[in-house]
């Protein structure tokens, strides 16, 4: 599998050579930091209001600020991810095809699976690197929380966002392999992501279809993670999702051999 590693290295190298990656990550971090502040302020304000109310009515509901902040923040991250991942994946295959390097890869002793996995893991790594600094705000908050928030919640949340991001990256890679036009790839990826996102819209009703749709919605499973719950059915969902789209991408890359010119 040295082909896989070589391709992974090359992809990572390319990400960090172009200024676009830095701008991208920078923008993501600025937005996430800004919203973290907003969320923190909002939650604190709300908790004071609740305290006021409980004092008025003699109840002590005990508003858990850090947990609420964490949940909202992970919710925000997922929205950012929805917008950022199509841009991350749009050029993964398009560039290679334009430069003719796809021909190099496909006439070398590397399998399509190695190519697809190498690229996917690289995009996932970039995604993880992008997320890493956001952990600093949360870690800081957890350390200062009293009683201290269990680390499990933090880990579950990040596991969730990584799986969610990984799924959208796999989807985006597949779409990117279908077209040479990066813009179209980004738009279609975004639209498709949005579609599976809102599949849980039928949440209110109790019908059978609604249950199926809810299971298929990519955001539904994420919510469990943000609450600190790691549900095996959600894990299965994300793994299946990723495996499915990696498989489809491999077939799509193979089909490039049959496309004219």
């Amino acid at each position, binding site marked *: 599998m040295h082909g896989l590693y*070589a391709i992974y290295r*090359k992809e990572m190298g390319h990400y960090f050579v172009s200024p676009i990656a830095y701008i991208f990550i920078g923008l993501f971090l600025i937005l996430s930091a800004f919203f973290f502040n907003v969320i923190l302020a909002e939650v604190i304000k709300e908790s004071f209001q609740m305290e006021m109310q409980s004092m008025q009515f003699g109840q002590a509901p005990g508003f858990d600020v850090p947990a609420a902040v964490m949940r909202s923040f992970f919710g925000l991250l997922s929205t950012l991810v929805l917008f950022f991942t199509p841009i991350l994946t749009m050029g993964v295959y398009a560039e290679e095809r334009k430069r*003719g*390097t796809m*021909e190099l890869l496909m*006439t070398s002793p*590397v399998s399509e699976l190695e190519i697809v996995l190498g690229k996917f893991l690289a995009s996932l790594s970039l995604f993880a690197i992008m997320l890493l600094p956001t952990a600093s705000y949360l870690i800081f908050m957890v350390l200062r929380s009293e009683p201290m928030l269990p680390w499990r919640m933090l880990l579950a949340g990040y596991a969730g966002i990584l799986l969610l991001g990984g799924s959208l990256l796999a989807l985006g890679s597949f779409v990117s392999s279908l077209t040479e036009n990066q813009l179209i790839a980004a738009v279609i990826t975004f639209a498709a992501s949005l579609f599976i996102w809102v599949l849980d819209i039928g949440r209110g009703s109790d019908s059978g279809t609604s249950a199926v749709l809810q299971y298929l919605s990519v955001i539904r499973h994420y919510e469990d993670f943000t609450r600190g719950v790691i549900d095996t059915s959600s894990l299965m969902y994300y793994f299946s999702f990723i495996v499915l789209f990696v498989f489809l991408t491999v077939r799509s890359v193979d089909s490039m051999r049959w496309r004219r010119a």
Partner: protein
Amino acid sequence: MIEVQDLTKSYGQVKAVDDISFTVNKGEILGFLGPNGAGKTTTMRILTGYMPATSGTARVAGFDVFRDSMEVRRRIGYLPENPPVYPDMAVETYLDFVARIKHVPAERRRGRIDDALKKTNLEDRRSELIKRLSRGYKQRVGIAQALVHDPDVIILDEPTVGLDPKQIIEVRNLIKGLAGNHTIILSTHILPEVSMTCDRVVIINKGKVAAVDTPQNLTAQLKGGQKIRLEVEAPERRLREVLAQVPGASRVEIDPERAGERLAVTVEAAQGNDIRSEIAAKIVENGWRLFELRGVSLSLEDIFLELTTDDATHAQPSS
């Protein structure tokens, strides 16, 4: 080393490659000559494992290109028409990447990269970003990547296109130097290149093989076939009959643009016959007025055009 048999590639109704067969012996340099769209690139892509054929077989070093694709790919270095380079990488880094995906073992990589850089004269450019190199240098990087894993077979698609004359000579010498240790296929439009570098030539047109032979044989064979130009005042039909009777004459062509009393005629003679005096005699015999009679010999250019503008099977290959 390379055997191609009845290879066909169709895209729907169109046959890009139509039932071609040829072999390349170990250490040989084979030239692929043909106009654009003849099927040269498609054939190369089939040999390198990029795309599968519709029917027929191709074997490289004993391995079938379809069934044992990975084995074949290990043994081939390929330079497509546009060098497949990553602009943002340095030359060295790029060659390292290619060495890795071609399974060059770690301990040999350094040596192989240095060797490839030396052979293509890129040593002083090794740390430079590829996007900063001129076309000629990029082409050399393309050649270097085809060499880096020391493959048995090297396939080059138009390797000298875009190079200046000095670089062209360097590349040709490089290719000739590689023969013997490597088996080489190169495709080109440049006819002198074929006679200068190749041991044998396959002329391809419209997906079919028009001729397979050494450059010398091809020119000799068809050069021996003369073309004779006539200007004569004679009735067309009768003239054709008479000329057809001349032993050794093959085709008679009358220029339609100059119809009228004085006909412009081209007669082709089969190999080795100088039929000019016979033609002259026949014309005089019939009492026609002869204004011009001259022989025109064929250059490789003519042969090429001849073989590729008319029937693909016009020339009889003697491989």
